[in-house]
């Protein structure tokens, strides 16, 4: 008797629910509620894991046989190509913003700082993972050299690769992750100079977060009090352009 109508109801109801979710997701209130997830998980994870929990490190034989290149494989701008042609001898990393002593460091200077090497797992937001070895100075060492001024809350990374043909990639992290022992500016990968596909001359490793936070082709490190003035204010290119979480620990 009611079998057919009921089954129809379920099917219609199911399709209606999916459509309803679209409507909720695109409404201002729905969006405001749903995009709180990053914040809530950020707080929960800081409570559960603390500030200094370490990402797991692996043995050399546990590395991926082949590490996938993702995002921009080559900035391919005139400036970048000139730097790459000179093996980045002319490249300088600027450290500025809310710092007492702005820095301009060559690759040789970065290599002469105390180094950290770590074999870690890179987790892309898409779902895949690859394990590789990364080496470079801890970001905390650079920030200590530059001396953060009062009010500095976030560290922003400005990159050489252009998104959509015009916007240089940018990302940001809080000071807890910036001073985390595994947060390094890697210039070597798997015991060789960082390849262009993986962000030469230097990429950020921020091991407790997803891949899009690990900015490649880093040109400038800026200390800021607020993310409001960076891009559209959400702290990163993918956060601003597509609504990805700023805290990408989940």
């Amino acid at each position, binding site marked *: 008797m009611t079998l057919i109508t009921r089954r129809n109801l379920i099917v219609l109801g199911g399709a209606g629910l999916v459509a309803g979710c679209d409507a909720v997701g695109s409404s201002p209130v729905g969006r405001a509620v749903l995009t709180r997830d990053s914040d809530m998980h950020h707080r929960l994870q800081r409570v*559960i894991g603390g500030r200094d929990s370490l990402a797991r490190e692996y043995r050399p034989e546990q590395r991926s046989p082949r590490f996938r290149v993702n995002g921009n494989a080559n900035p391919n701008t005139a400036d970048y190509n000139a730097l790459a042609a000179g093996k980045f001898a002319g490249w300088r990393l600027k450290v500025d913003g809310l710092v007492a002593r702005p820095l301009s460091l060559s690759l040789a200077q970065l290599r002469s700082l105390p180094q950290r090497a770590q074999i870690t797992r890179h987790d892309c937001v898409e779902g895949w993972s690859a394990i590789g070895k990364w080496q470079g100075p801890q970001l905390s060492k650079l920030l200590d050299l530059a001396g953060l001024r009062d009010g500095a809350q976030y560290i922003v990374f400005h990159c050489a690769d252009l998104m959509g043909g015009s916007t240089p990639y940018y990302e940001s992290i809080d000071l807890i992750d910036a001073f985390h022992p595994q947060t390094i500016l890697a210039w070597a990968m798997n015991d060789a100079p960082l390849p262009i596909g993986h962000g030469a001359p230097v990429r950020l490793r921020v091991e407790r977060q997803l891949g899009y936070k690990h900015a490649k082709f880093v040109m400038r490190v800026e200390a800021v009090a607020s993310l409001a003035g960076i891009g559209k204010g959400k702290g990163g290119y993918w956060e601003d352009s597509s609504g990805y979480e700023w805290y990408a620990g989940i």
Partner: protein
Amino acid sequence: MSEIQDSEIPAPRRVRRHALVTRIWHWANAATIFVMIGSGLMIFNAHPRLYWGEYGANFDHAWLVLPRFPGWLTIPSYYSLAAGRHWHLSFALVLALGLLAFMIASLFNRHFQRDLRLRRAELGPRHLWADLKAHLAFRFHDPANPTAFNIFQKLSYVGVIFVLLPLLIFTGLALSPGMDAAWPWLTQVFGGRQSARSLHFIAMALLALFVVVHLTLVILAGPINEVRSMITGWWDVPDEDEK
């Protein structure tokens, strides 16, 4: 029995079947599962390959490669990994905290001990066979004790509440690089992050299968009575059980 006049048939016996806590969790969880599966399929679409072990990407061997799920199955219906993640990670909190609250409440009101405890005799092959035959004859209730769950109900509810949902929650947590740093055992117990992702998907498929079977049995057992009992708590003991 055949002599009884229509007018003499007693009104159905109405009994209290489901506690308020059970009903609230059931519907909140039903909505949550719906959102979690839809948004999970959206996230899966971003990389529809599954691996075993710690790592796994395009150059590595995938044990399962699927075409992308169609828009009518995903949340949102258009391709947006970012939006799918917001849905999934928001409702993940509802799923996990809701299950925890339900478990605590069901220990206190003795729902677990009274209704879901598996007894040795029920698990014997003879009992299982008898229950299976009863199921195939569309008899779902023990006439002597009609409100008690039968063994297949118990096994499936226990499997969902104590195995599948916790497995989904913990394999989900194992996908989070922040949680993996906080709890390094997470990826290790599942044999690596990509294994956790595969188990997350398999557990989802089993849960989807449960939902299909569950809805089918609700329809076969009398949908109005069953759904009403899960809304109001009151359930009519089916006629044949009275005889």
